[in-house]
């Protein structure tokens, strides 16, 4: 799997995540985005040990519920490491849906959807999505070449990934990496 290491994180992480983002649209505009977190094998082992109770190498629906309860929902306090700004205004991520957990090649994979409804208009709107753990316990690598868009036929959009040098985190030492997405209604 190709990956690009986040260029400005440092030091003391205990957990590593490779993160993929898929932005969803509909006829009206943006509806949200799906995140896929692939954990490193060492941390994955801890989650698998704790929640794959029948030791069959996969999470059944009941086990997924337990993973969600025991190793995901607590992240609500950390906005699920997801920092969103719409036209410069910060939005707290306190609700996500469609959580799922899988085990693929010894790695635990989380999937979840972050609802974020933004109506498309004739002028461009800007949304910035930064996915990082401010405590740096977890180091999250955004897979830049796997930022995808779904059901986007009604919208014109373009994006880039850049460092936000105005709002460093972790004692002001790390610049967050953000997806900067601009979109508007397609001209008929």
């Amino acid at each position: 799997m190709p990956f690009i290491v986040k260029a400005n994180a440092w030091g003391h992480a205990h957990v590593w995540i490779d993160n993929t983002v898929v932005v969803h649209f509909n006829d009206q505009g943006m509806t949200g985005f799906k995140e896929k977190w692939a954990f490193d094998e060492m941390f994955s082992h801890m989650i698998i040990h704790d929640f794959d109770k029948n030791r069959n190498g996969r999470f059944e629906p009941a086990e997924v519920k337990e993973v969600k309860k025991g190793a995901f929902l607590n992240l609500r306090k950390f906005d699920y490491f997801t920092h969103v700004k719409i036209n410069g205004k910060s939005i707290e991520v306190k609700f996500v849906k469609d959580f799922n957990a899988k085990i693929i090649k010894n790695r635990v994979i989380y999937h979840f959807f972050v609802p974020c409804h933004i109506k498309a208009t004739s002028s461009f709107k800007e949304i910035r999505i930064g996915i990082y753990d401010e405590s740096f316990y977890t180091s999250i690598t955004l897979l830049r070449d796997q930022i995808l868009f779904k059901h986007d036929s009604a919208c014109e959009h373009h994006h880039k990934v850049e460092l936000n040098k105005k709002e460093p985190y972790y004692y002001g030492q790390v610049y967050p990496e953000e997806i900067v997405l601009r979109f508007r209604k397609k001209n008929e």
Partner: protein
Amino acid sequence: MNKIVAIIFTAMFLVYPFQGEARDNPFVSKKTPKGEVKLPTFASRGFAKIALWQHQLNKKLTEQVKRLKANRTWETLLPLILISFLYGIIHAAGPGHGKVVVFSYFFSRRSSIKKGLLLGNLISLFHAVSGVTIVLMLYFFIKAAYLSSFEAISQKIKLVSYSLIVMIGLALLINNIFSTKNNPSRFHEAGAPDTPSDGKGILPLALAIGVVPCPGVVIIMLFALSFNLLFTGLMMSLIMALGMAVTISIAGLMSILGQEGLLKSFSRNQKAQNLIQKGLTVFGSLLIIGFGSILLIGTL
């Protein structure tokens, strides 16, 4: 040269206390995240390199453990030893592992390089032993969930550790105030033979700091155990501890040598030199008390 050392010392002195303690696991921690002090961004390029190396070493460790499981030879074991050592050095470079307390401790009393190395090594040894002990208890006896159990045990140990750090800081403060009152010209050059009183606080302090289990060791140990590689896990933990000892010792040595540099830059003015040294001893003790208190309050 002394002036350069003094400048570095002062810069470290200003920045170091803010480089906090180890963070809790956000996946299970019951605590609410707090805002933090923001410092000028000056070192992010260097930190970027460290993060990159750490990520790569973590992957290499994972692969090497698997190779060792498949093929138990010196060719697979030796790289694992080297990677564990490097991983330890880099792992301890981030916040935590008691570096702030070590740094402050050597403000509070002039000490020898030997003592700096000893404290660094003892802390990392206890740090690893604590992590390994918890893993062995969880794996062989308690057989509970790793994530929540480790977090719960770790929180209790932190409470004890931080209380001890505050108490040691208080003892150092009282001791420093009394000893400077009784013997105002007390002086001890770095590198000079140690007096018995120099080493007094080393062991209790190393225990107080090192008793907090290293999450890095815990994760590596559990991973090795998942392949039934108990002795490999123990070896990796010990080697990692040696790597961490390098980094923690550097924090101590920076404080010892920085203080010497600063004091020597005032060697022509004995009065100012004495005043600075007295100020540092009291300030070092206060820093330990303050830092320990902040950690303790954060854990309650």
